[in-house]
């Protein structure tokens, strides 16, 4: 059960190399690309715009609608069949919940803000990369936000607690636990938490601390990306 050394040579609490850029999709109202290791996510924001179907409209507030999709060639192994799956629908849902707490859409009744996330290449941690990119795209679109949202997948591989799990680790033969977490980096509030695998309560506590540290690092990359587009030259 021992996991001595990470397959890509990282320290156990080390994130993969990250890259972030905003404004990569000029047709969108806001957009971003976020790359962690070999996982590459694009996010585009459209809206607020009129919501169809009309029965979904809320006269008290605008709604957030997230769509997650893996490009057919972006998976490891066989081609991913195009179109929505149960998995992609669920991820869309948890992304909405991860992002909504930083937004105030009450000024846009009956409207929708659409967030589209597309994965160009995947090496685990795709929903987290998607959330990180989407929050940048929302900022790029000019929404007032309480904070950015940064997300990372922490977990347990063999007997070790690790940060930013990659696909090889996720598939670790003797067992791996994957815990995707999204946080508001300034306050450490949690907006996404999922877990599959097996950890003790104490391990979970440590993982939350690790996630807090990691999302702060991601936050710096996010802020830098925004400064590159909007900062004083």
């Amino acid at each position: 059960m021992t996991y001595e050394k990470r397959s890509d040579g990282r320290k156990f609490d080390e994130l993969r190399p990250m890259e972030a850029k905003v404004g990569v999709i000029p047709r969108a109202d806001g957009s971003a690309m976020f790359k962690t290791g070999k996982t590459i996510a694009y996010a585009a924001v459209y809206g607020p715009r009129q919501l169809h179907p009309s029965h979904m409209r809320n006269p008290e507030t605008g709604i957030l609608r997230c769509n997650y999709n893996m490009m057919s060639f972006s998976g490891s192994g066989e081609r991913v069949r195009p179109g929505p799956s149960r998995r992609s629908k669920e991820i869309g849902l948890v992304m909405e919940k991860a992002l909504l707490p930083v937004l105030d859409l009450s000024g846009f009744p009956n409207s929708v803000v659409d967030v589209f996330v597309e994965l160009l290449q995947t090496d685990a941690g795709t929903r987290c990369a998607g959330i990180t990119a989407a929050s940048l795209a929302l900022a790029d679109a000019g929404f007032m936000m309480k904070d950015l949202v940064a997300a990372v997948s922490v977990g347990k591989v063999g007997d070790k607690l690790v940060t930013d799990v990659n696909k090889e680790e996720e598939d670790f033969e003797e067992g791996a636990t994957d815990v995707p977490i999204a946080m508001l980096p300034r306050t450490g509030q949690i907006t996404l938490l999922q877990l599959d695998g097996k950890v003790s309560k104490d391990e979970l506590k440590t993982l939350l601390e690790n996630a807090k540290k990691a999302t702060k690092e991601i936050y710096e990359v996010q802020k830098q990306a925004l400064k590159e587009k909007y900062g004083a030259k």
Partner: protein
Amino acid sequence: MVNGSKKYIKALLQKGLREDGRKLDEYRNVEIEYGVSAKSAEGSARVKIGGTEVVAGVKMEVGEPFPDKPDQGTIVVNAELLPLSSPDFESGPPGVDSIELSRVVDRGIRESKTIDFKKLCIKSGEKVWLLFIDIYPINNEGNLFDAAALAAFAALKDAKFPVYDEKTEKVKYDEKTEKHVPLENLPMACTVLKIDDKFIIDPLIAEEKAADARVTTVSIEDGSICAMQKGGEKPLNSEELVKMVELSLSKAAEFRKAFK
């Protein structure tokens, strides 16, 4: 007149001008980047034509051949007009526009005979390679037909076969060979629009919306035509069509020289 309106586009063209300052027969800058999804796809590429950006990837699977072509593999082309790439595209099952786009790209590759499908045969009547080519716009600023066709071809050019284990009958996707898909020639799509009495290439969105007719011509090195598609609501007479094809062929020839 509002920028981007039909009237504006038409009035500009009458003066020999376009919205972005190009000549009528001038292409935007084209960039090709290979291996943009190298970890996942057997082949991948990103194509930018001006502000239009399209990615394409190739996944290879082993399957059974069609009964009437037992010694041939095949390609399956799929395009999805992502709502990520334009406010005009909606979520949902593939609409007719994305189906047309993928079928035109498919025919361009297939009919150019650039891939000898017999070379995709592993065991006649039993096992052949199936090449899935998936095309996604990232940002649509017009001329998706040409961009999609070029991205699909570039992804094929980038593709290397993974290892196929005949014993387990499984593809080992984490092990790539050095073997490329043999490509015999370079099919090049060039779309021409007719707006009033003017012909333009590499259209912007506003020009596409103002167009009377659209003709996509896919040609190969020797100048012969391997696929065509007319779109748009207005008819064309044969003189007009020939003019459009000539423009397309000359641009494709020019372009082919630059493509390496």
